């Protein structure tokens, strides 16, 4: 469903993403972990067709993202980092715009709009301009936009950033409830999130995959402490030991 091969992004001499290869399928919730600047967002930008890779390929449901961009993008729902939105629109206008671009029409359009609005509890702010909304609502509008067309592949860059604990919990539940027939990729640096929703975790640093395992195994390796594993893997053994002590 989502496959990358040798995915690389260079800025000048610096490799932000270095020869990344992984594949995943429906039912998986893949957590992308790594320190800031590890290349998580850049990888997501390449997979969704926003940034062209310097080398390598990515396929979405068999569509190569660089050559068959539109077909691939139709299958993806994407929440970019920071959930950028058109601030002067209302959530309703914005979602209607996305529905039009996604080719939804008639009763399907009405149905899907109603469903995502209910799912993300956007009712109270539907007719308020987006720039007056709280961070939590903005994030939820961004999520609503991503799942509006019921995509096969959902790519969420830090979906719970800026949400309060209750909202985080709700979004995680939402992710779990959708995960059965979809492939969901989330990036995060909140480790508990990985344990809470992911079926698989990939830890990257300096653009390379360091660990690809289930959260359960990772927790076991760290004697119940995911933080310790994360530090050990991303900083190297000694630093990790120091940081842990």
């Amino acid at each position: 469903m989502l496959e990358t091969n040798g995915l690389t992004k260079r800025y000048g001499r610096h490799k932000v993403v270095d020869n990344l290869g992984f594949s995943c399928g429906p039912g998986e919730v893949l957590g992308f972990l790594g320190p800031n600047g590890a290349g998580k967002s850049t990888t997501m930008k390449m997979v969704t067709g926003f940034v062209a890779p310097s080398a390598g390929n990515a396929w979405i449901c068999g569509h190569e993202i660089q050559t068959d961009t539109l077909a691939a993008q139709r299958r993806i729902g994407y929440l970019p980092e920071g959930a950028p939105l058109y601030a002067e629109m209302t959530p309703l206008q914005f979602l209607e715009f996305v529905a039009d671009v996604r080719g939804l029409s008639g009763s399907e359009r009405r149905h899907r709009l109603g469903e995502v609005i209910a799912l993300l509890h956007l009712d109270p702010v539907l007719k308020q301009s987006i720039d007056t909304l709280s961070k939590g609502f903005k994030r939820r509008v961004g999520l609503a936009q991503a799942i509006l067309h019921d995509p096969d592949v959902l790519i969420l860059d830090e979906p719970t950033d800026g949400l309060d604990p209750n909202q985080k919990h709700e979004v995680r539940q939402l992710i779990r409830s959708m995960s059965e027939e979809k492939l969901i990729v989330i990036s995060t640096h909140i480790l508990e999130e990985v344990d809470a929703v992911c079926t698989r975790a990939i830890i990257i640093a300096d653009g390379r995959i360091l660990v690809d395992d289930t959260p359960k195994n990772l927790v076991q390796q760290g004697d119940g402490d995911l933080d310790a594993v994360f530090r050990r893997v991303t900083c190297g053994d000694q630093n990790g030991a120091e940081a842990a002590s």
Partner: protein
Amino acid sequence: MSMVIALFRRELRSYFVTPVAYVFIVIFLMLMGTFTFYLGGFYERGQADLRAFFNFHPWLYLFLVPAIAMRLWAEERKTGTVELLMTLPITPLQAVLGKFLAAWAFAGIALVLTFPIWITVNYLGDPDNGTIFAAYIGSFLMAGGFLAIGSCLSAFTRNQVIAFVVSVVVCFGFLLSGFPMVLDMFSGWAPQVVVDGVASLSFLTHFADISRGVIDLRDLVYFALVIGAFLYANTIVLRWKQAD
């Protein structure tokens, strides 16, 4: 096409939910009136035509059109919404067209709202309305040319001020390319063909031709080519900047 329409509607609506549209239209109409009646001597000329009105369009557009165009892509890049837009199933060409057409339609609305001057001249005398209509068409096409240039240049940067300043300079070059100021830069070293080519690029001469009441195919093709070329360049810039 439906993508272009969806984008067009979103863009056009965004002008009117913010004060941008109203401020722009009011300033545009005020300046048009001032120029026509004071600098152009609309009454003093004692002629029933709108020469005094249309003569100032190129100069007003020089500053006002880049002001519309500067936000087209620079703002999207600044707020990050360009990432949202370009990961929707939209081709760069559709995105460029939708935004450009909305801005052009907006400029058209501002232009149409100058109709009181047309009523005035018809009330005072008996003008050649065919010529006036042609001049309106010419003015609209010229606005499209300026907008295409501004749209393309705004894709280079996330800073709207830079987009504005560079657009004004490039538009100024296009406006005056038939004049010694620009031609002298080429006549010293370039062959005559090039100098003639540059001279024929002038917005001013093409607009003057149309506003005399003659809608020549060559002038239409000229504006179509300028718009087409800059919008095509716009898609390339968009892709190129996206790869960064």
